[in-house]
């Protein structure tokens, strides 16, 4: 039958691949997981790969990206070269001076031998996705595909159908992890591969954690990552994502964070030296009196493309959210920002702020920004702002008049521009690391 089709679309290709992998996937995980996979692929079949006619993909040609045929990353592929460590070999260093609990994934697989999870309290859980499906099924069933619904999202559906790897992190009640948890994702595969990752992070009531995620890859391929994060009442989470070392690997990430009452979440998304990135960040505010901070920094150059989509869904009253994204575009690069604040009918006394500021350095660089407000409650304070411009000529003149070279003056002003975002980072080592990376650009 397939031979009669003149051209197969990418959607059809994925459906066919699912048929091929079906039995392997069925073997791997318990039945309840496979059931969800099946639902997801059915859903994907209906939705199809989004085109640019889809409002959420207006500026981002996903079709073109996934048109590239790669093999799928199998879970059986567990052979790891541990010497020398991949990041040592590539000269990619971990974050200096950061005393952290390491969690390492290699080509998507969790590597216990390279991780230092022994520093975690016994009651906490860290394991790979497949293992969690078997050992912590009861717990996982509450969260897997429950926080992020694939019903209307083809990319999520696709990830859910094919997901093979990822992490499960569970921090129990009243446990506070002092040291930051550093997840290092290392991809080292000369062939291009589709990586379908699913990270599930659960903070139970009054738990506390700081998570930093970094990527190191010089290999081609596509990394589809879905993070489902549940923050229970009065729990506190900071979550930093550093998309730095991705010259060839294209990333499509989706993060949904569900917040219960009085919880606190701070996220930071820092993108630089990344070829093609699309980030979806959704906050579901399910309880009252929550506090949410979303910060982002994107620095693009060459032909790089970075797209940040965020949604803050104010479902309950008395919540506070604050979003700040800043970007600097150089060369022929393109950046997209789309932020949405949605205030439901009953979410009175909502306080929501959103700000997106951009500097375009060349005439070839492009920025498409769309900050949205959708409000159905009347007793709210919501505002947003977006600016695009260049370096202030007067400020530049001021510095030059004081004997600072143009190059240095520019660097100084750009640094000050980014300072707003960097200064919100409470982990000094991470802040320093980011500053160093920026200096190298």
């Amino acid at each position, binding site marked *: 039958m397939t031979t009669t089709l003149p051209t197969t679309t990418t959607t059809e290709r994925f459906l066919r691949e699912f048929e091929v992998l079906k039995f392997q996937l069925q073997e791997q995980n318990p039945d309840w997981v496979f059931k969800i996979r099946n639902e997801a692929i059915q859903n994907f079949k209906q939705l199809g790969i989004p085109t640019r006619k889809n*409002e959420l993909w207006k500026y981002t040609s996903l079709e073109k990206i996934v048109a590239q045929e790669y093999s799928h990353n199998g879970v059986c592929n567990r052979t790891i070269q541990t010497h020398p460590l991949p990041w040592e070999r590539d000269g990619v260093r971990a974050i200096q001076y950061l005393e952290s609990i390491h969690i390492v994934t290699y080509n998507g697989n969790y590597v216990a031998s390279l991780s230092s999870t022994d520093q975690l309290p016994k009651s906490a859980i860290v394991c790979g996705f497949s293992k969690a499906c078997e050992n912590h099924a009861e717990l996982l069933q509450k969260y897997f595909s429950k926080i992020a619904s694939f019903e209307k999202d083809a990319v999520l559906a696709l990830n859910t159908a094919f997901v093979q790897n990822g992490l499960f992190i569970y921090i129990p009640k009243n446990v506070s992890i002092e040291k930051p948890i550093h997840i290092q994702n290392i991809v080292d595969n000369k062939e291009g591969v589709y990586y379908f990752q699913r990270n599930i992070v659960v903070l139970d009531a009054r738990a506390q954690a700081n998570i930093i995620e970094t990527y190191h890859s010089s290999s081609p391929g596509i990394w589809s990552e879905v993070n489902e994060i549940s923050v229970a009442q009065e729990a506190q989470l900071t979550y930093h994502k550093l998309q730095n070392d991705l010259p060839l690997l294209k990333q499509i990430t989706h993060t949904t964070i569900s917040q219960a009452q009085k919880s606190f979440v701070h996220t930071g998304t820092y993108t630089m030296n990344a070829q093609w990135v699309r980030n979806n960040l959704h906050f579901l505010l399910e309880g009252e009196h929550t506090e949410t901070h979303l910060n982002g920094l994107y620095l693009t150059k060459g032909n790089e493309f970075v797209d940040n989509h965020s949604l803050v869904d104010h479902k309950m009253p008395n919540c506070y959210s604050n979003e700040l994204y800043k970007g600097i575009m150089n060369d022929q690069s393109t950046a997209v920002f789309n932020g949405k604040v949605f205030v439901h*009918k009953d979410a*009175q006394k909502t306080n929501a702020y959103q700000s997106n500021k*951009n500097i*375009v*350095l*060349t*005439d*070839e*660089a*492009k*920025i*498409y*920004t*769309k*900050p*949205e*407000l*959708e*409000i*159905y*409650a*009347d*007793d*709210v*304070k*919501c*505002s*947003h*702002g*977006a*600016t*695009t*411009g*260049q370096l202030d000529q007067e400020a530049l003149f001021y510095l030059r008049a004081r004997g600072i070279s143009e190059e240095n003056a520019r660097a100084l002003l750009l640094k000050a521009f980014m300072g707003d975002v960097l200064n919100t980072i409470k982990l000094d080592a991470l802040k320093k690391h980011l500053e160093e990376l920026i200096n190298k650009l």
Partner: protein
Amino acid sequence: MTETKDIIEEVTNSEYKYGFVTNIESDNAPKGLSEDIVRFISAKKNEPEWMLEYRLKAFRHWLKMTEPKWAHVNYPTPQFQDIIYYAAPKQKKELQSLDEVDPELLKTFEKLGISLEEQKRLSGVAVDIVMDSVSVKTTFKEKLAELGIIFCSFSEAVKEHPELVKQYMGSVVPYTDNFYAALNAAVFSDGSFCYIPKGVRCPMELSTYFRINEANTGQFERTLLIADEGSYVSYLEGCTAPMRDENQLHAAVVELVAHKNAEIKYSTVQNWYPGDKNGKGGIYNFVTKRGICLAEYSKISWTQVETGSAITWKYPSVILKGHHSVGEFYSVAVTNNFQQADTGTKMIHLGKNTRSTIISKGISAGKSNNSYRGLVKINKKAENSRNFSQCDSLLLGDKCGAHTFPYIEVENKSAIVEHEATTSKVSEDQIFYCNQRGIGTEEAVALIVNGYCKEVLKQLPMEFAVEAQKLLAVSLEGSVG
């Protein structure tokens, strides 16, 4: 607090005051749309062959298009085959003075509080009335003719100034632009045409009073306004419509062309029937309005007060092609009951040193939804261009919605683009402050809403500002005026 609620309820419950039907015999086309109907309309209007060709081209293109669904509005799809596409009052002979106008018609305008005599005498406004699609009366035409200004109905322009119509019609809004623009190009009934020659400053405000009268007739107006080098014109457009149960479709096209150093100021007050308090009936207002600043130092300014229509879907835009050209957009949109408005603007910066300003004020009450949707695009070659946008929303009541969807696309490093938006309600503090000083809650809300809209209202010409305030008052009855 209860008092505020009362007022809000009053606002929500107020009925549309201008609902009445004038009994004038109509010369209607049969229901439905086909090539024959397009030919019928064209023949009825004694149009030349090229005009018919244009209509047919647009119609054939329209058949290939599908209705747009992206706007933040919900409504049943209009049944395009159930609409009467042509209705003209049976008044065929040329009129020289007001005495010859059908007295029924004059009464209609009197009920609206805009009697022609008064306008003629007091404000010096030349009124080109469009009542059910055909221009009935054009005043001050002779006076304008002295200056070389052409101000007439569209069909007259087709006959008398074909070269101008041929040159400019569809140059800003081509029939391929969108679904409703194509529909309009195929079946447009009439509209206004205006040409201001080189270096002429139009001495009076030009005005058209639109009014939908016949049941079941969609109105397809077409306005074309050309300001030649160094000229200036201020154009007013305002509308009310009688109460109806079926939804009526209105798909107008407005094209503005500003040449070098020319300035066009286009003001609209729109108060079509918004439907009753259960959301039944009301006008569908799907309008394509666009202006182009063709050459250096030209300026186009849109001002609109939108209070009516069940559904408004309207984005007056400016293409800033000439260097140093300026685009402005000032808008107040009020929605009540079940009204839905998705309105905003597009500022397309193509030329160097172009500037644009967007001030949008939305007020939602009842169960209505009010959206701002705007695009600011800075093209690669639009050096040193500048945009400032401000979109504020005011919510009266807890069942309404206010939304903002700004699109900002920047492709030039020297451009400066700013956008800010706020959403809030009339604060209790403000009302308390007024109450304390002996101002009743009702007046206080009026005061606050008036102050909130002032930035836009002050852009309206004097004659119009009064009317705009009246219409605001009707829309938010009990709290304003």
